[in-house]
């Protein structure tokens, strides 16, 4: 859909917290429906802030953000957020945790239970629905967190370094699972990461940001066909792109004051 209007559009967005320094400086970009956009850059480049602005959690200081034709604060129903940490309620079982967003919106117990169980099955945790978070491994907790985000059938998924704390094997598995789920559900993703390999594997677009203040330095298009699998990581195109993004990231790091 090359010419349809963007589902998320940033126009000259600026952000500072209070009287603090400028975090984001004139950020402009548009994401099309179905895009998987990774944001990568040195720490302090404001990539997590971009997600928080899209979610409407924080107000912007200047410019304009359109989320499916709405202001971010009115677009809550369109969005789901996956945090760095699993951010589960420890006193609720996996299935009850997945139900929380629906519960907060007033859905009935029967309906939300059914959707929550389906969502857990999607991330491969159907047999863990009655486990408490502390009985689950780090990877499983993150799966529950993703199931919770997907349970509200979002159009836009915001993921803030969700797999950063996991070991590489688990991270690779979850990357593949995330793409497999995306084959069945057409959401647009914004994915913050520190891992170049992860960004290339998941995305069709990678925004490389520079820091102090955060600016979009460059964009890399990843012309690898979906569905992507383990094989994708072995292809020349993939290897080449990882090298290119790494090079860009290094040049951005060099820009730092």
């Amino acid at each position, binding site marked *: 859909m090359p010419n349809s209007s963007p589902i998320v559009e940033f126009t000259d967005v600026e952000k500072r917290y209070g009287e603090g320094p400028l975090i984001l400086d004139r950020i402009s970009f548009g994401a099309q429906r179905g895009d998987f956009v990774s944001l990568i850059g040195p720490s302090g480049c404001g990539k997590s802030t971009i997600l928080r602005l899209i*979610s*409407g*959690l924080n107000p912007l200081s200047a410019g304009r953000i359109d989320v499916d034709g709405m202001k971010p604060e009115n677009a*809550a129903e369109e*969005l789901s*957020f996956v*945090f*760095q*940490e699993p*951010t589960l*309620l*420890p*006193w*609720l079982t996996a299935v009850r945790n997945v139900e*929380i*967003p629906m*519960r*907060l*919106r007033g859905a009935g117990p029967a309906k939300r239970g059914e959707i929550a169980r389906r969502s857990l099955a999607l991330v491969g945790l159907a047999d863990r629905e009655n486990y*408490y*978070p*502390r009985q689950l491994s780090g990877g499983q907790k993150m799966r529950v967190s993703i199931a919770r985000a997907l349970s509200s059938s979002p159009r836009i998924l915001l993921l803030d370094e969700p797999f950063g704390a996991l070991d590489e094997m688990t991270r690779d598995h979850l990357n593949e699972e995330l793409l497999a789920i995306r084959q069945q559900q057409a959401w647009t993703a914004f994915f913050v990461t520190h891992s170049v390999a992860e960004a290339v594997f998941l995305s069709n677009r990678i925004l490389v940001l520079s820091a102090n203040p955060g600016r979009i330095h460059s964009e890399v298009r990843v012309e690898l066909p979906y569905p992507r699998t383990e094989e994708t990581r072995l292809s020349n195109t993939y290897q080449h792109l990882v090298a290119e993004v790494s090079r860009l990231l290094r040049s951005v790091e060099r820009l730092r004051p």
Partner: protein
Amino acid sequence: MNKQVLRWLMPVMTGVGMIGLWYAVHMSLGEERRFLVPAPTEVFRAFHDKGPALWGAALSTAEGAFFGFASAVALSFLMALFLSLSPLIRASFYPYLMILQMTPIIVMAPILVLWVGPGLMSVTVITFLICFFPMVVNTTQGLISTDRNLVDFFKMCRATTRQEIFLLRVPAALPYFFTGLRIAATLAPIGAIVGDFYAGNSGGGQGGLGFLTIIYSSQFQMGALFATAVVACLLGFVFVAGVIALSWLALHKWHDSFSQTDS
């Protein structure tokens, strides 16, 4: 020897050793001063002779302790909810709560007896006062210590303030609440005994353990005084055990303090 057996045996041995020591102190005193440290057997005899009076008094004290404790739990929870609303509210009220806590209960007790009258009512109020502060402080701390990310998550789901309080902050505060509850449970019987030391005898009904203490000490009934101490101690245990059981019920499934794989 097996470690498990040792774990049971050592505390028992310690207890036996302490009773032995007690006997030794008793025997080492001269004939005319020996009554000051009655032998364990005399304490047991006091239990036998004064049993009905002791248990009756224990029940009476327990009643005041329970009502004071329960009302402190309920009101401290509401107070903590209020205090958790803003730092400004906390700053406005904490100093006065501190003053309430810093004033020794021994000084307050006679005043309160004059205010609310003797008997169960003043015992309850004195217990309430001694339990209230630790409960408020702990519960408030719990309510304002909710994980930042969880609060953000609720905000992103556009949760109402009421939802945020009752689905997130209150359950997250439970471990803190139970810490306060444990402290209050050890204080409640003490408060109640102080209470009926001042006011328990004149309420028309039977006096509590504090009242027995006055009688036995005025008559130099050392065995009976020791027996009263033992009963008071048992009452404390009952309260603490009750709270531990409650906190187990509320927390064992999910909280790390009850982790099965305790390392």
